[in-house]
């Protein structure tokens, strides 16, 4: 065996943060791909039939806007958790993570309400397929985010306060989610 000079243990390189960053990039690519299809089919439908939304379908803008607005406090709370975690403040970190998860649940609830109010039949044409595919994927991402918040909070409150990288990665996830949802909000709910 060749004897290379041995090295001291390297400084931590934020493996979890990089992993979450890659996952966020993949999620953004998947959502972007779906939204591109949504726009393509909308353009075709408008050119062929002059209409895209199925008859009788109206988009409830109030819950859609509330979801977007909720992303601001989600990001603030996620960053608050990072701020508190860096200072080893368990109580504030737990509170911030809990609030982040609660607002994540609120986003999921608002999406469920939109599905119920719109009541788009699954076999209604390209709109219904792409509507459910895009909103379903983003809702799945929100569910993953809430689970991430709960797991992060439990780890931190359980005494693993030195693992601040998890809290930072958690914040990165919600920032990325906010970006992805903002894309969806503009394409699916605003420009419809």
């Amino acid at each position: 065996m060749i004897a290379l000079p041995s090295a001291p243990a390297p400084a931590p390189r934020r493996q979890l943060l990089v992993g979450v960053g890659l996952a966020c990039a993949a999620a953004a690519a998947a959502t972007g791909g779906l939204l591109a299809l949504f726009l393509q089919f909308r353009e075709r439908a408008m050119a062929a039939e002059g209409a895209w939304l199925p008859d009788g379908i109206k988009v409830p803008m109030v819950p859609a806007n509330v979801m977007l607005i909720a992303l601001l406090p989600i990001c603030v709370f996620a960053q608050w958790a990072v701020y508190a975690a860096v200072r080893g403040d368990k109580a504030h970190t737990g509170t911030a993570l809990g609030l982040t998860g609660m607002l994540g649940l609120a986003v999921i609830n608002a999406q469920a309400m939109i599905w119920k109010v719109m009541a788009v039949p699954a076999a209604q044409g390209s709109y219904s397929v792409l509507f459910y595919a895009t909103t379903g994927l983003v809702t799945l991402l929100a569910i993953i985010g809430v689970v991430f918040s709960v797991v992060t909070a439990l780890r931190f409150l359980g005494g693993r306060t030195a693992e601040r990288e998890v809290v930072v990665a958690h914040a990165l996830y919600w920032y990325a989610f906010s970006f992805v949802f903002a894309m969806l909000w503009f394409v699916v709910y605003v420009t419809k």
Partner: protein
Amino acid sequence: MTTIDPHAVPASSQGAFVASVAGWVTTTDHKRLGRLHLAVAALVAVAALAVSALLSFERIDSASVSLELGGLTQMFSFARFGLTYLVMLPLVVGLGLAIVPLQLGARSLAFPRLAATGFWMWLIGGVLAIVSIAANGGPNGGNARFVDLFSLSAGLVILGLLASLGCLAASIMTTRAPGLNMRRLPFFSWSVLVLALGSVVALPIAAADLLVVFLAHKYPSLSELSGNRAVGEWVGFAFTQPVTLLFAVPVLGLLGDVVGTATRTRLTPRGPILLAVGLAGLGVLSAAIQTPVVLTSGFSALSASDKVSELLPFLLVQVLPLLGTFLAVALVAGGLRTKPKVSAALVFALLGALEVLAGAAAGVLNHVGDAGLVGTTFEEGTWILLVGGVLLGAMGGVAHWAPKWWGRRISDKAALPLALLTFVGVELAAVPMWIAGFADQPGAVFPAVEAGPSVVEFSYSGPAELWNTLSTAGLALMLVSVLAFVLLAARSAVKGDTTGDDPWDGLTLEWATTSPAPSDNFAALHAVRSAEPLLDLKPSTRSDA
């Protein structure tokens, strides 16, 4: 974390067998995961090449087709899907998993349990996809339930590969040995990073499209998305160039490492080589726009502004990856001016890279509308070249790194003829398809599907029999050589000559540990001061000393 004590001695041979199987099934060791990918992909390669040869045989005489259309269609789906996502990509992923952490001087892969999950997702998805295809449920299939199952299982295959590639990217970015910065990365590790980052963009888009296809097929309501042809139409970009060129990028990295080892020199200019390999991965942009970028027919008649708007995306998506591939091969091959020590790995890697370069060039030509090659067998020939390039590269990688996995080497004398045989097979399979493509032979095996459920007709003006016979022979030759290499590798793992820790006088960190490498790779962390850390310790062998 559950651990398995490798030193535990079971009471009986049966117990030893069960313990061994359990060890492999529950493993999170990157070397084992990589070998599992390689082994399964090799088995699927044999099956898919056999089916491809059979399909090609059916084309020889279109007047007397022995299989009915549905069967032919599903065989075509199996060959295309199988060779791309169950062979081509898994081979490079397996090679990456098995060797990249060793090249990085790392003790393990990042997120090893995620990588293990990725392997099982890929395997289960692959089995379900094959079952779906066998039940007439693949793309263009007639069994609605199994078409749905195929969409979901293909998505599972893609997610599994994505998980493994994510682990590789995270490893390369975070677990490098002290001093091993990005510029000093071994060429193979760099090329795997290019593949992994490209795939993080490309594969989720393909998976999302599969979700749409599944929903549209499950709830049929629109003509454009529903129906069993939607997979090919909406996810087709993921099965063709230049996305498949992205999957072949690690062959270029392998060539860099093998040439450096064979010549015992520091390959220069290092920066441009890394840049060229990165450029070769730009085919990922094709996935981002989800459609082939074709230079429109009648290009010369277009206005100046239209020419510019046509040319820019074409240059970016098609020409730049070719330029990168060419520069990477040319710059690395420049290292061969120093007389190399010829090994089977060198020949495999060189021939594989040449196939990839030819595939990249043909891919560009295929997308020039005025050439009239879109939809012909030319595209199929190009795809075969890239598949062949990856097969050659994977065989070269196994020949090169086998000592690190099982402590024994594959005989150069036995492997070298297989390299040449595979190369000849790939050329024979691909070039006649190019010629037939210029003569307008349609690319699919089911061109006359509208004419009736059991009619297969080829509208073709050239000597179809000759080209299709040659292509069949080429595919059969590829099948034989892959099978022979698998047997040779298996034999060498059991009875091959044992080797020292550094049998090739290597330059990179994987040769600084024992052969075979222990489960935690390195007894101590190493400090790295150059891109070829082992060459720093071997001044007597340095040609540039």
